[in-house]
């Protein structure tokens, strides 16, 4: 069998009209057929095994024990992504801000932790302050004593909708500077809870201290309505809506990761842009 008669490989991959062969002489036909049959068996065997390995991997992943509402290998994937993006994070990168003409009407999506009307005697409890013995209790006047900041940003829901809204409140970093004396570990966390503790979120300190992270008492120029978290809510444009906790009852500074409502139900703990 001469070189030309051999079945020659075209490039790997799909090919509708691969390389052409010179016509094999009559006795060459059966050789070519046999060679092709051998290659076909081998290739389909390899292809079949590859398919089975893929399907098996899927089955295996899908049937793993859940860790925080999602298969544990996928939870590891979320954690690895989180570490990667926390390293990449920079305080100087800001969420886009918009003009007053671009403000939209709000959309209410969640009411966990908002079952009751806001308490007229509401106080904010601040716990876990380094070197403090007692939790701090603050009134709305204490919050409003801080410089007021207005910001027009896009609230992005993890379910896919987003709204451009105007917020009024105080910077979380100003709040910390005034009421949380002492050294804050940059690798520690902040937890926030509703007064009834039905809803709770955790944030890494870098995100909490970002200049666009606000404690808000106004929305679109009006006092915050009850269903949007009166009297005080978190607005953090660097995170999905699930982290923008409404009606804060307690703020906790902690070296351990505070519990997070949706991260216990399969979502990414980080949930950051």
């Amino acid at each position, binding site marked *: 069998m001469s070189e030309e008669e051999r079945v020659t490989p*075209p490039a790997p991959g799909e090919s509708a*009209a691969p390389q052409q062969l010179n*016509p094999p002489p009559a006795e060459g036909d059966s050789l070519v057929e046999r060679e092709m049959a051998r290659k076909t068996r081998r290739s389909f065997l390899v292809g079949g095994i590859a398919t089975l390995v893929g399907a098996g991997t899927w089955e295996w992943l899908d049937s793993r024990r859940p860790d925080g509402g999602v298969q544990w290998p996928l939870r590891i994937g979320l954690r690895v992504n989180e570490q990667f993006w926390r390293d990449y994070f920079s305080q100087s990168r800001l969420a*886009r801000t918009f003009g007053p003409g671009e403000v939209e009407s709000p959309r209410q999506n969640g009411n966990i932790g908002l079952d009751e009307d806001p308490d007229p005697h509401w106080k904010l409890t601040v716990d876990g302050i380094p070197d403090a013995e007692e939790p701090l209790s603050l009134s709305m006047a204490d919050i409003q004593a801080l410089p007021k900041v207005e910001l027009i940003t896009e609230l992005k829901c993890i379910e896919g909708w987003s709204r451009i809204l105007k917020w009024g409140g105080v910077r979380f970093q100003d709040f910390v500077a005034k009421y949380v004396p002492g050294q804050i570990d940059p690798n520690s966390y902040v937890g926030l809870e509703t007064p009834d503790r039905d809803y709770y979120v955790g944030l890494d300190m870098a995100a909490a201290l970002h200049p666009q992270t606000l404690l808000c008492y106004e929305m679109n120029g009006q006092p915050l309505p009850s269903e949007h978290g009166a009297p005080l809510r978190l607005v953090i444009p660097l995170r999905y809506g699930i982290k923008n906790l409404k009606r804060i009852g307690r703020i906790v500074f902690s070296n351990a990761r505070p519990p997070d409502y949706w991260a216990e139900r399969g979502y*990414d703990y980080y949930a950051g842009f």
Partner: protein
Amino acid sequence: MWIYWANDVYRVGIGSFTLFHFFPDAFYNAFHLGHRLAEGMAWHFAFAWLFAINGAAYVVYTIVSGEWRYLVPNRNSLREAIQVTLYDLHLSKTHPPRRKFNGAQQLAYTGIVLMGFGSLVTGLAIWKSVQFGWLTWLLGGYTAARIEHFLLVLGYVGFFVVHIAQVIRAGWNNFRSMVTGYEIVSDEAGQ
């Protein structure tokens, strides 16, 4: 699809008139896709890395091996692609030239790589819209990036349907050549 279930804002229509809604409830019910957003996102952001690495490996191999010469369209590809389409739809009897990849294939196989790159870029603009705010801005904003990402998904579905239909149409010898990398070509047909 687990992800798109949660907020199905995509539709084809003008104003309040909707011609087709992506996707009808029946679609989600038929495939048990509802209420699985969290799980869907966990899969998505684990396999996005595999998608990126696999795509990069393919492109690097295609360049290094010189195979790109068969795949990248040239100035005749568009004309030839139209010819192939007309022939395949039985609107023309002119058989397109027989080569490893014809013009239609060159456009499709290069286009799908560019689409993959587009999915990575639009995906990154959505996923990290603050850290890569400039990219989100370049793509027309957060909402625009989401729509672009979704249109690419529709593009893959279209590619898949045409691709499978063409493989079935081309028959066993062609399918065998796709899997083995070899094809038996007789003298008469081969010239």
